[in-house]
């Protein structure tokens, strides 16, 4: 217990409570208008999606273009459950989240299997294909409403529930990453041959990463469905997967705080640009390209390093020393 009460953990706990208190106060003091309040739940859900995908892309180093697929199977499973069960919300929603998470995790496992054989771009295209198959099947499955969508989902999600689930997701994934299991996952990313030669069970950890990432994407999907009250297969298309991927990449690969911030920005940005209506997508596209070009600009990077990170600066100094 004592070890859990370090300064760092206490600070994190305080931050978690403070952010919630701030949200709560803003809500009750009427600071939020309807649009901004309606954004809170999507922000939380997108953070969950970005953080879970980060485990795959940032830490395991496998490109996935089908994260929306995991989200959708979780969403449909969880929402079908609440539609057909007649239990109080306090029982129903947690069970639905668990079910959605588990169903998505099963799919994560199935997609993890090709990941054992395929590399890089080939795996990326398989995840893309997986997402498209899911969408195509959902579109034609009368049981879940087909392309018309699944209606009548109770609107259980609110920002408190989403906030709690988001915090849990971040803590679980951050703790996982900073354990021996997370180190094993990162070692696979950096050099799979060395990883195996050091006795890391690569198969096990690849599957674990896919299962864990899919599990949380599934829960995010359940919350998504219970926020809107309707699920449409077209929401979970390739572009949604890309949107999540952009959050991870923009946040800086392998950085969880970065993923969180990027998720917030990317959720809020389109709303903030609502006044520009038709130009919104164009601006998004330009920002996206500009970000990537800037991120890979040597001069900009060294500026960023000087600005942000002492460690990076020290490493930079080491590098220049080597260069001499």
């Amino acid at each position: 217990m004592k070890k859990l009460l370090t300064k760092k953990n206490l600070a994190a706990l305080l931050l978690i409570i403070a952010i919630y208190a701030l949200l709560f106060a803003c809500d009750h003091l009427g600071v939020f208008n309807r649009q901004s309040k309606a954004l809170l739940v999507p922000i939380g859900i997108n953070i969950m999606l970005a953080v879970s995908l980060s485990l795959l892309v940032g830490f395991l180093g496998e490109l996935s273009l089908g994260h929306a697929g995991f989200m959708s199977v979780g969403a449909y499973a969880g929402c079908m459950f609440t539609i057909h069960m007649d239990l109080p919300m306090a029982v129903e929603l947690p069970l639905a989240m668990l079910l959605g998470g588990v169903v998505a995790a099963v799919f994560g496992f199935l997609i993890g299997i090709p990941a054992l054989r395929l590399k890089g771009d080939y795996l990326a295209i398989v995840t893309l294909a997986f997402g498209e198959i899911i969408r195509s099947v959902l579109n034609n499955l009368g049981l879940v409403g087909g392309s018309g969508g699944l209606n009548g989902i109770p609107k259980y999600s609110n920002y408190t529930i989403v906030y709690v689930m988001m915090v849990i997701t971040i803590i679980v994934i951050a703790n996982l990453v900073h354990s021996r299991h997370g180190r094993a996952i990162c070692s696979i990313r950096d050099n799979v041959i060395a990883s195996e030669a050091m006795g890391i069970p690569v198969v096990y950890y690849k599957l674990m990463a896919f299962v864990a990432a899919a599990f949380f994407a599934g829960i995010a999907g359940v919350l998504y469905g219970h926020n809107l009250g309707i699920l449409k297969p077209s929401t979970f298309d390739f572009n949604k997967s890309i949107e999540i991927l952009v959050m991870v990449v923009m946040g800086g690969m392998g950085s969880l705080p970065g993923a969180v911030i990027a998720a917030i920005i990317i959720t809020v940005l389109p709303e903030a640009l609502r006044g520009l209506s038709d130009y919104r997508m164009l601006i998004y596209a330009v920002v996206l390209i500009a970000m990537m070009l800037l991120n890979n600009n040597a001069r900009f990077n060294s500026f960023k390093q000087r600005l942000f990170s002492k460690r990076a600066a020290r490493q930079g100094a080491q590098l220049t020393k080597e260069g001499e």
Partner: protein
Amino acid sequence: MEFLAQIINGLSLGSIYALIALGYTMVYGICKMLNFAHGDIIMVGAYTLSVAMSTLHFPPFLSILTSMVVCAMLGVIIERVAYKPLRNASPLAVLITAIGVSYFLESSALLIFGSTQRNVQSAISFPSVQLGELNISGNAIMTLIVTIILMIGLNWFINNTMTGKAMLAVSEDKGAAQLMGVNVNFTIAITFLIGSALAAVAGVLFISSYHFVGPYTGAMPGIKAFVAAVLGGIGSVPGAMLGGILLGLIESLAKAYISTQLADAIVFGVLIVVLLVKPTGLLGKKITEKV
């Protein structure tokens, strides 16, 4: 007869996929990047054709040529502006940039032409052929002929011209090619130019059969062609041709005999199965890492 008709349908659809897939595979071979914006070049090609024909009243042949030139230039410009600065960046950064370019093209089209689809008259019409009970549409014949000519031409170009050989060299080893005096920047530009011009042709052929173009017209054929390229083994030119044709056949047979709605799912499913058996596609090179 029904079956034969479906096969011809599939071949003609597959030829279009193959033409687009060639652009994916050539660019991947040379830059090792997935150019997700390539599908949208088809859309640009189709819009250009439509503007050239109905607004500028160009004759069909000139319209097609205009469309090819516009797309080729666009391809080269995209490479210069967006991809060239990222040549040594992580593949993921390049991928996201390509997706950004794709969104850019789509939203530009949306702003210029609006969201309603534009009706485009065929640039060339070809009489349909009656073989006994079998009626082969003129479009299918035209598509097949054009594709075969272009593919033979491309194969000849790659294997017999200096530029083509330079392309092969750059795809093997960019650094070594440069040391041997190959102008890498020029070669990459040519690759984008050819790939985009082929996509324009694919756009023209696509529009001859479907008659409508909207801002997102290129997205789905783009993804399918991408799948075709991977199916055949991305980076391999014959692979793209084979993958495209196979994909077209699978799609039209699935539509005819299994389910129209699930055809896409079947196409993607086939891809996954093929990759599980042959992890680098049908004609892809096996990659072995030296330890």
